[in-house]
């Protein structure tokens, strides 16, 4: 059973999607470690190390995603999980921006997959299957 760490990064308290993601991924057969809202990069990384997770799935809804996610890949490298798969989704920047630009910004930060607003978690299941090799 593959393990996925989920949570909501930064000072973000949007809890609904987080609960739904937990429900959906568990139903889809994953071991889900939910660190909840208001989680720092360190919280995600520690949880991933502790549970030998295969994927960190970061939610950011409130708009500060850009500030909150910077340097996360570097921290993973430092922590010795350089190759862990990093996803980010939700409403990851402030306002309605051209998404291709936004995507580039986050890919450059080292995220493997970046999702536009309104992508329900179900739509990402295919990618997860692919990336976790099932």
């Amino acid at each position: 059973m593959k393990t996925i760490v989920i949570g909501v990064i930064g000072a973000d308290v949007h809890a609904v999607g987080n609960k739904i993601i937990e429900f959906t991924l568990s139903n889809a057969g994953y071991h889900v470690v939910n660190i909840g809202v208001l989680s720092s990069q360190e919280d995600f990384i520690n949880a991933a190390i502790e549970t030998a997770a295969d994927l960190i799935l970061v939610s950011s809804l409130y708009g500060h995603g850009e500030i909150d996610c910077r340097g996360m890949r570097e921290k993973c490298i430092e922590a010795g999980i350089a190759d862990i798969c990093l996803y980010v989704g939700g409403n990851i920047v402030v306002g309605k921006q051209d998404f291709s630009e936004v995507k580039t910004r986050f890919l450059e930060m080292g995220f493997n997959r970046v999702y536009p607003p309104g992508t329900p978690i179900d739509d990402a299941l295919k990618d997860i299957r692919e990336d976790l090799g099932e």
Partner: protein
Amino acid sequence: MDLKNKKLTEAEFLSIRKEVLSGWVTGKDNELDLTKAVEYLKQVPDHKNFALKLNLAKQNNVTMVQPRAGVPELEEHIKLLQYLEECGADFVPSTIDSYTRQNRYNEAQKGLDESIEKHRALLNGFPVVNHGVKNCKRVFESVNVPIEARHGTPDARLLSEIIHAAGWTSNEGGGISYNIPYAKSVPLEVSIKNWQYVDRLVGYYEERGIRINREPFGPLTGTLVPPCISNTVMIIEALLAAEQGVKNITVGYGMGGNLIQDVAAIKSLYYQTVEYLDKFGYKDMEISTVFHQWMGGFPQDEAEAMALISYSSTVAALSKSTKLISKSPHESIGIPTKEANGLGVKASKFIVNMLRDQVMVDSDCLAHEIRQIRKEVDCLMNVVLEVGEGDLAVGTVLAFKQGLLDIPFAPSKYNAGMVLPARDNEGMIRILEFGNLGFDEEIKEFHKKKILERAKSEQRKVSFQMTVDDVYSVSKGKLIGRP
């Protein structure tokens, strides 16, 4: 617990105040001198006083429109508010960014600096503490309508000091409503105490003849919150505020989606708030109501979002709530541009004007739903008072601890999180899992029956899947998440 529902003495208040003002450099501004602040507030003209304008609206039985809006840069924020005023907003807000809400003023400063440098918003609101009284006065002096701070801050003491001293005559929030949906690990007794301070500040001004409006945040998590739960929280926060000397209170409710239940919720919210304030001996209270347009996930399509905004306004107008908080067609995507925000204001204003002379007429269904909500709220209020042995503040903390009060989908660990809501077959929000919610058996039976009716008509078992389906449904254009 040294918490008590008791008015802080002026001495207590002033002594805490010293500490509060030291929270960030802008707390040292000499405009925060209370004599100066009182003087400034006394000069606020009536039409820019939130409380007085609300009273007038209530008297005339009209619904006022207020958007949500806030951007980090001062000049941009001013332009935004002026634009919304032009679009017809009766009140303007200043929505505060999320770092400030968590008292992370350092990060807010970084975000503000970078936003100014790149001239692109990196914060999701106006960092009011970092801006300080001077900038807030600039905002106040740039518009012709009252201003309210809207945030989600468990410790909003410094924030509140700054905004009121700058002439902003309304402040949203409360010890429960700005904690449970907005924080993970702030104990309820801490946030309640913080908000006693915020209310006491308003009480202080009140004693000096300055009327300031307070608005507990009704929608809570914005997601399938049954009216009895949010109304109970509203009444508790109104009582707590009144104890600290607040006189002008707007109790709130976030649209559920069923017309009858929504109107019933607003009506019973008003009746019962007045009733409880009266019962506990608070006199000369001015109570109004605020209806929030759909607070859950919005549809992505902008035409659909406009339809939802307009429908929400229709419900508000028919319920004759005093105020209506509007959304924008960008809601599901991100913080709206000022133009998108303006579209929401215009559509909302059109509807409340158009329906000015119409009300939701009396009917058996409406009366039944009002009775049901009142019964449920009375039941919850009794439980809270009982467990607090007569002290409402203590009772609230204990009720949440024991799950007797429980808000669905809340992030706080001080919330049991065991209540699960779902819609019934008409789309009214009912409760599917009660956890320890302080309901009596009769009420529980009613909810079970209602949800069973729906399950039958959908030919499926009652389960959490229903809740999940209902969380998504409106954003997909249906009220009830049918299979």
